[in-house]
């Protein structure tokens, strides 16, 4: 095995700093007042307005209608992130289950159809999706925000590959033990997929959390604003002599980082397991 030398650590430290510094700068800057930031630019030393800024961000009513608080945006982001992750996992597991375990005439063909859509980003189908949701009167609803994006080629693909690695004998043993398709799915497949589910959950939660374009199209009502939109709207007030609340924008950005980081930390152990080994 390779013995670590001091140089390796230097490279590691530089790499870590490179990734961590922007976050530190954002956090430190958020503890100064907007005027200070406007005068002196980004800060790397702590300021004296930590509690004040974060308190304001979380509770002050803002936006154009004055009805949306940071808490509300945080909640919306959570609903979107968790709704995405859970919905995508449920849907793609069931799709993959059907593709792997049921003999369809065109199962392989269908799989490739699904797989091909992996190549198409959301932006390609964003207008038709919007049209459909608008006709269904689902604009400005959580349903409209979440449901159209639930079909996940990535998730289906990962679960399909995982299910294929489960030995056939397990299915046969379950059949002899009297477990039907639904029982087998719930009693055997789901518990075995735990690590895989954790991995997909992280990916999809972060994906949902970071959505910007889709919520912006789908919702005009400010009570559906997510954090991503909140940050943007704080910076959009450059009118006359008013300066944007940089401190609040940074505070919100820092807040926006915390939940995905927490999710990764919590699921990390399973996540790595899920992507590297099939638990036998």
């Amino acid at each position, binding site marked *: 095995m390779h013995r670590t030398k001091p140089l390796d650590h230097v490279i590691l430290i530089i790499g870590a700093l490179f990734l961590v510094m922007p976050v530190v700068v954002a956090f430190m800057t958020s503890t100064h007042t907007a005027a200070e930031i406007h005068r002196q630019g980004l800060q790397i030393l702590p300021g004296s307005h930590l509690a004040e800024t974060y308190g304001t961000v979380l509770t002050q009513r803002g936006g154009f209608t004055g009805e949306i608080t940071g808490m509300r945006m945080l909640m919306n982001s959570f609903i979107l992130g968790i709704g995405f992750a859970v919905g995508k996992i449920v849907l793609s597991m069931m799709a993959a289950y059907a593709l792997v375990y049921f003999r369809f005439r065109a199962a392989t063909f269908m799989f490739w159809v699904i797989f091909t859509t992996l190549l198409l980003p959301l932006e390609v189908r964003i207008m038709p999706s919007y049209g459909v949701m608008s006709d269904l009167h689902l604009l400005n609803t959580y349903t409209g925000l979440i449901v159209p994006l639930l079909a996940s080629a990535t998730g289906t693909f990962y679960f399909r590959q995982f299910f294929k690695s489960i*030995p056939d*004998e*397990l299915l*046969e*043993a*379950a*059949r*002899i*033990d*009297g*477990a039907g398709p639904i*029982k087998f799915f719930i*009693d*055997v497949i789901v*518990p*075995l997929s*735990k690590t895989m589910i954790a991995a997909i959950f992280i990916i999809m939660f972060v994906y949902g959390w970071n959505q910007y374009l889709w919520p912006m199209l789908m919702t005009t009502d400010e009570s559906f604003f997510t954090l991503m939109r909140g940050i943007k709207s704080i910076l959009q007030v450059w009118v006359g002599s008013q300066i944007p609340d940089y401190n609040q924008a940074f505070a919100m950005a820092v807040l926006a980082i915390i939940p995905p980081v927490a999710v990764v930390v919590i699921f990390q152990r399973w996540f790595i397991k899920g992507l590297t080994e099939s*638990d*036998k």
Partner: protein
Amino acid sequence: MAKITIDNVVKTYAGGNTAVHGVTLDIQDGEFIVLVGPSGCGKSTLLRMVAGLETISGGEVRIGERRVNDLDPADRDIAMVFQNYALYPHMTVRENLAYGLKNRGTAKAEIEARVAEAARMLEISQYLDRKPRALSGGQRQRVAMGRAIVRKPAAFLFDEPLSNLDAKLRVTMRGEIRKLQKRLGTTSLYVTHDQLEAMTLADRLVVLNGGRIEQIGKPLEIYHRPASTFVASFIGSPAMNLVDARIDNGTLSFGGLTVAVGSAVNGPVTLGLRAEDMQVAPPGQAGMSMQVEYIEELGAQRLVHGMVGDQALTVTLSPAVPLTDVMQLTLPADRLHLFDAQTGTRLHAEPRRVVQPA
């Protein structure tokens, strides 16, 4: 507990490939039947058709008096033990054993009693709360057998259950399977490619080749009277020597010796000789000369490989017998196996027991 009737069963795959050609087999209640054959002979396919994991293309399978062709595996009243154990990895041993019963809606107390009984029988009681991955191969196989036992099925189906174990454990487990089956008296169908396993376990042995039955019989019957050269070479270790010989006017000649065998056939035949049936000829008695090529020492005995004329021969000799470069061997007149040179089927000529120099 029930008899199993396999009546002219055929398996043809979608591509037109036929894996099993009309196999007929009657299994008595409580009997231990071993299906043996080389890989690809259709033995596993046949077992899986009985289990209901493969559809039956033709013929009929009956368990007890019930025709089961169209029944789900769960409804056939059978239990199966797989080669790779197929334990549910996320369940404890206890849950693994109980799963089949739970699905059938067996009462909780009954499940517990049966699991405890099976665990005691298989000596896995102390592992009941462990997950399969914390168990060794032998223990896993016990759990897999436990899963079959708790169900109290009409029949056990074993699909090469010992192939994943190391040689020593295989011998132990072989004995335990036999003991357990005797004790429970459950009809069993056992698939293996290991002829030794087949010989030691079976009440009756079914030798399969290319999707057809070559021979059915008690292990010793098959050993002593193989129905074809295929069976002769497959059953027994070392494999039976099969050499070219001739019969002229009822007299077999091989290696410079002749034996009167009756006048059933004339011309070339295949002569089968078990390695342990040949002895060193006593001084003064005519023998066939074998040019010794190499020796395999097995401890209790040694295998001597050599040539008689242009025919390879293997002989089992006691280590006490002195070795020479050329050895004079007897031809066991009452232990000759004669096969048709073309078709390989056994010729039923009763040898008269006289050996003479040519």
